[in-house]
Structure formats: structure tokens, C-alpha cells
């Protein structure tokens, strides 16, 4: 017992030193972003939104970029961030691990709050159905990517094309790599989000299957955020596209974004189901 106090103190010092320096200032809000681009670009992209929130709440807003997706989920789940921007899969995982979260808004891209993906092959190839992909080389994007891996993987599995039925598959890191790798002939088929597919379709791609529509990226809030502040932030977000310079703020985050729209947890049910089924076959 004699040594317990210094030990606990030492551990507290170590934990404090190693932990990211979040919410150290009582009167500032932390806006967390998952690291889908470089920190520098993300800071630049989200700075106008942070400014909007700051004006609405009267509090300074600091942007925090997580080290990786899992850390981001953890920080949101443990209420270390006041507001967080995240992808659909991260959201589903967040809720599954930490319970329901207050939802602020989701993205509306070109007028739609949902997005799709394509499983495709070269237009000159003989592949016409998902079944034709059996015995072929398949290109995925990032293992954690919704449209370049998880959803198409589920679709293939549902169509009876498991990993074991493929001649091989690789993760090429991003959607465009997948499209170009298939076009270049290194892989027979691949999966990408709709935007990337349409961009490269004219270069010689043919869609084999379209994924179900999934709810877009979203903003969630800390469960401890006062309701008044939550409402102010939500209102500021949902009306942003109508505000002066609002579209500039939105397009700074994503060029094709047209608004931030209301979101409900059940908007992600179909994805939740897909992830659940994938987990049952060991794909996480």
C-alpha cells in the first residue's frame, strides 16, 4: 500500500502524457474528423464549418484529426469530441460499440442523401453477371471502405461468389486504383463508389451490379453536449445551404455536396444488416 499512491500517480502522469490533448479548454468545442485525407487538407476543408459552428454557439471550435478510423470511433464513443464527422460504417460500428449517439445531419450529395457503388468489369470482357466473376481476379479498394470492399463483398457472397471462389483478390487502397487496375487488365473485376465508376465508365467499364443505396456520411454529437447547444449546431448545419457563403462551406468539404440534411439512426439499418452478415462470415 505504501507504494500504491506513487504508482497510481505515475500511471496517471503516463496516461495524461500519452493521451491526445482533447477538451483541455473548457469553453471550446472539438470537431473531430476521421483521417480520410491528409490532416492539412482536412483542416482547410473543415475550417469554414468550424467557423459557422463557432459563430452559432459563440464558442471557439478546434478541429481534431484522428490518427486512424478506430481511434476516431473510440474518441467519439468516449465523448472526447463534441462533434464528429464520420462514414456510415464507422457510425454503425460506433453505435454497436457505444450505443446510440445524438445525430446532427448527414450529407446530401447532388440532391441525394444516399450513395451507391458498382461492381464492374471491362466493357470488352465477357463478364456479365456476378456469377461470371467466379474464378476471376478481383480488385477491392480499402478493407474498411464501404463501397470498394464491404458492400460489394457482401453482394458477391450473396451471389455465391466467396473469396474462395475467386482466382485472387487484392486491396488497392482506393477507388480509382481499382478502376484503373481493372482497365489496365491486371484484374478482371472490381468495386468502386458510383462517382468513380461514372468518371471512368467512358474509358471502358461496364457495370455488372449496383449496390443498395446507403445513407451518406454524417455528423454526430457528444452525448454530453447540452441540448441547447446541440439544437443550435444542428440548426446551423441544416440551414447552411441557405446561408450566405453556406454552399462554399459545404463544397469545401465535398465538391458535390448540396446540403446537410436531417438523419435518423434507421437510415443505416440496411448497412447495419450487411455488416452483421459480413461479420458472420469473418469479414470485418
Amino acid at each position: 500500500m505504501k507504494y500504491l499512491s506513487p504508482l497510481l500517480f505515475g500511471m496517471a502522469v503516463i496516461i495524461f502524457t500519452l493521451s491526445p490533448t482533447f477538451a483541455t479548454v473548457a469553453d471550446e468545442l472539438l470537431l473531430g474528423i476521421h483521417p480520410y485525407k491528409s490532416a492539412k487538407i482536412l483542416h482547410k476543408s473543415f475550417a469554414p464549418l468550424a467557423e459557422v459552428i463557432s459563430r452559432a454557439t459563440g464558442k471557439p471550435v478546434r478541429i481534431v484529426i484522428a490518427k486512424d478510423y478506430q481511434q476516431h470511433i473510440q474518441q467519439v464513443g468516449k465523448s472526447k469530441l463534441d462533434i464528429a464527422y464520420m462514414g456510415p460504417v464507422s457510425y454503425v460500428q460506433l453505435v454497436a460499440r457505444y450505443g446510440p449517439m445524438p445525430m446532427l445531419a448527414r450529407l446530401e450529395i447532388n440532391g441525394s442523401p444516399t450513395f451507391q457503388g458498382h461492381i464492374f468489369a471491362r466493357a470488352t470482357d465477357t463478364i456479365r453477371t456476378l456469377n461470371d466473376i467466379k474464378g476471376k481476379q478481383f480488385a477491392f479498394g480499402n478493407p474498411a471502405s464501404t463501397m470498394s470492399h464491404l458492400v460489394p463483398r457482401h453482394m458477391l457472397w450473396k451471389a455465391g461468389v466467396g473469396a474462395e471462389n475467386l482466382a485472387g483478390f487484392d486491396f488497392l487502397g482506393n477507388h480509382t486504383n481499382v478502376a484503373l487496375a481493372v482497365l489496365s487488365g491486371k484484374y478482371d473485376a472490381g468495386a468502386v463508389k458510383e462517382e468513380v465508376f461514372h468518371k471512368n465508365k467512358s474509358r471502358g467499364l461496364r457495370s455488372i451490379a449496383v449496390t443498395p443505396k446507403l445513407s451518406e456520411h454524417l455528423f454526430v454529437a457528444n452525448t454530453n453536449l447540452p441540448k441547447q447547444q446541440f439544437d443550435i449546431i444542428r440548426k446551423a448545419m441544416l440551414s447552411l445551404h441557405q446561408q450566405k457563403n453556406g454552399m462554399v462551406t459545404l463544397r469545401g468539404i465535398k465538391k458535390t455536396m448540396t446540403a446537410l440534411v436531417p438523419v435518423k439512426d434507421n437510415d443505416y439499418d440496411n448497412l447495419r444488416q450487411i455488416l452483421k452478415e459480413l461479420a458472420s462470415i469473418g469479414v470485418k
Partner: protein
Amino acid sequence: MDIIAKERAEVTVQIHRRTLARFVLFLLALLIIADVTVIMQSHSMALELNRQQVNKKLSLAGDFCVEAILKGDYVSVEQFLLAWAEGYDEVLQLKATAANGFLLVNYQRKQNSPHTLTATHQAVFQNQPVLTIEIVENLDALYSAQRLNALTLVGLSIVIVAIFGYLLWTTLRRTVFLPLRNEIRDHQKAQHELTLRGRELEISNKDLEAFCYSVSHDLRAPLRGIHGFSTVLNEDYNDKLDDTGRDYLRRICDGATKMSLLIDVLLELSHVSRLKLIIKEVNLSEIATDIISDLQFQDPERKVTFTLQPKLIVNGDHQLLRVALTNLFNNAWKYSRLKPQAIIIFSKETSEKGKDIYCVSDNGAGFDTQYADKLFEAFQRLHRQDEFEGTGVGLATVKRVIERHHGQVWATSTLGEGSKFYFSLG
């Protein structure tokens, strides 16, 4: 004469100037040919160097692309090649084609150029083609630099040749033309002095001839008196003189006769020099025929074969040419009298230069050719008086006549075999 000399000087300077201009132009042409050769070689080398550099760049880019493609990172390949093409201003077009023919990158700059270089590189991995990169580079900058170099080189050549030509011209003018002009000026001076002397000499000759004519003419009257009275003395008082007196009287008569003859020939020489020329067509063959007839008439006993070339027609003074031919035929007649069968020929030959040359030849006594230069001087004789009589003025007269016709006269001979007297008319 001055004008002619001046014209000659100008012509000489013109010729030198033209020669120098030709030389300078030739030098310029030579330099330009050398320039063009150097420029073309330099251009080829620059192109080759450029091609090598492009190939090296493509090779490096290809290595990177292979590495990225092997990792499935096509985006990096696309972004890298696009950034690379965009970053190099000289890249007009870049195409990257996958092994299956898919055009992974197709970059086209909004710019055209007539001077381009196309290079292709095939990136391979384990002997399998992975990516073919084709690049079109703009060579405008290279061509502009080459054009500038060419202009500079040609400009420099022109300047060098111009400076060299100017220096050469200045040097030539100092070292050749000015001395030449001075020489011509001196020559003109000398010519002028010579002309003055000639005129003085001409005047003095005319005075001398006039003097000679008056003396000869004035001597005739007293000489006629001496000869007349000597003859009367010999005829009327012959019996009153002893042998010695008669011998003296005879010698006086001979002397007077000889003196009269000398006066005649001197008068003739003077006449030949003073007579105003009347140039017209003269038939030398006819004159020769007349002279020969006279000679045969004077001594019909002599056996002489005359050979005359007919229709020897010239332009000259009939009277003077007759005097000259008379002297030449008289000589031929006189110096061939010891030959039992004398031969006298009058003919025409043509010199190597195409000039007509007339010749009176005989098979007479001939003369020693070492004295040939004295032959045409007055009172110079190559034979003793007792061998062949004469005054020594005949050939001097011939020479004077021919010279007045701007011609030349000369003689060849073989002692004891005969002589040939040639003359030409100007």
C-alpha cells in the same frame, strides 16, 4: 599617253579590286559552308543529346511506374505522369498505355509546335511489358537556340570577312596600289620627258636634214664648176700637162664625180625623210618588175634569174617604196655579179604572228652576220670599195623608208652564198 597610262592604272586597280572582291566572296562562302556544317553537326548533336535525355527521363519514370503498378497504385502512376507532363513545359503530349492497350494517361498540352521529338519507352517487369510511355516534346527552344547560334555564327563570319577584306584592301592599297600609282606617275613623267626629247630630236633632225639638203644642194654648183673646169682643162690643155699633171687632173675629176654621187644619195636620203607620205594601195610586184627591167637594160650581158611572186600588194607610199625596193634590188644585182648564174628572188612569207614579211634574196657575196647591226647605218660598208663600189647610204635609205611605214627591216646572210633582206610594213 598620260590618259592611256591613267586608264591602265585604273584598269589595274579595278582588276585587283575585282580579284579581292572575288576572294572575299569566296572566303565568305567558305566560312558560311563551314558555319552550316558546324551548325548542322551541332544541331544533330543537340537533338541526339535531347533524345538521350528524354529516353533517360522516360526510363526513370518507367521504373517508378512499374513499381507503383506492381503495388496496384495506378493513381500514383496517373498523378505522377500527369504532374510530370504538366511540370515540364516542353512536354506537348504524353500517353501511357497499359499492356492490354488501355490508355491510362493521355495528356495533351494546348500548344503546338512544328519542331517536336517523339520518344517511346516500354517499361517491363520480368520481360513482360507493363506500361508503354510515349512522349512528344516541344523542340522550339532548341531550334530557337540553334537559330540564334546560326545567326550569330553567320553574322560573325560576315563581320570577320568584312574586317579581313577591309584590312586586306587597305594593305594592298598601301603596299601595291599606291606604289603602282607612283610608278605610273613616274612613268608618265618619263614618257612626257621622252616625248619632249623626241620632239626636240625631231626638230633637230629636221634642222639637220634641212642643213644637209641645203649643203648638198649648195655644194652642187661649185662641184659642177670643179668637174666642168677639170674636164675642159683635160680636153683643152692635155698636151701641155705632163703625166703627173694629167694624173692629178684625173684624180680631181674622180673626186668630183664621187662627191656628186655622194651628194645625190644624201639628197635622196634627205628626200626620203622629208617627203610627205601618200598612203595608198601599192603593187610591189609591179615595181619590182620595173626595177629588174631597168637593171637588165643597163647590163644585158649578165645572166640573172629573177623570181617574182606576183600581186604582192600593200598599203604605203608608192614613191618611197619604189626607192626602198630599188636599193634592195640594186644591192642584190651588185653583190651577185660575180656569180656566173645569179639568182634574185622577191617573195612574201607570213610570220608566226600572221604578219606579212617581204624578202629580197640573192645568191651573191653575202656578208659577215656579226656586223649585221651596222648594215643599215649610213656610210657603213662591209665590203671594200675596189670589191663592190657604193656609198654606204642605200640600206640606210631603205631603213628610213620602212621605218616611215612603221615597219621593220633586217637581214640574214651566209658569207659567199648570198643574203636575204626582209622587211615588214606596219
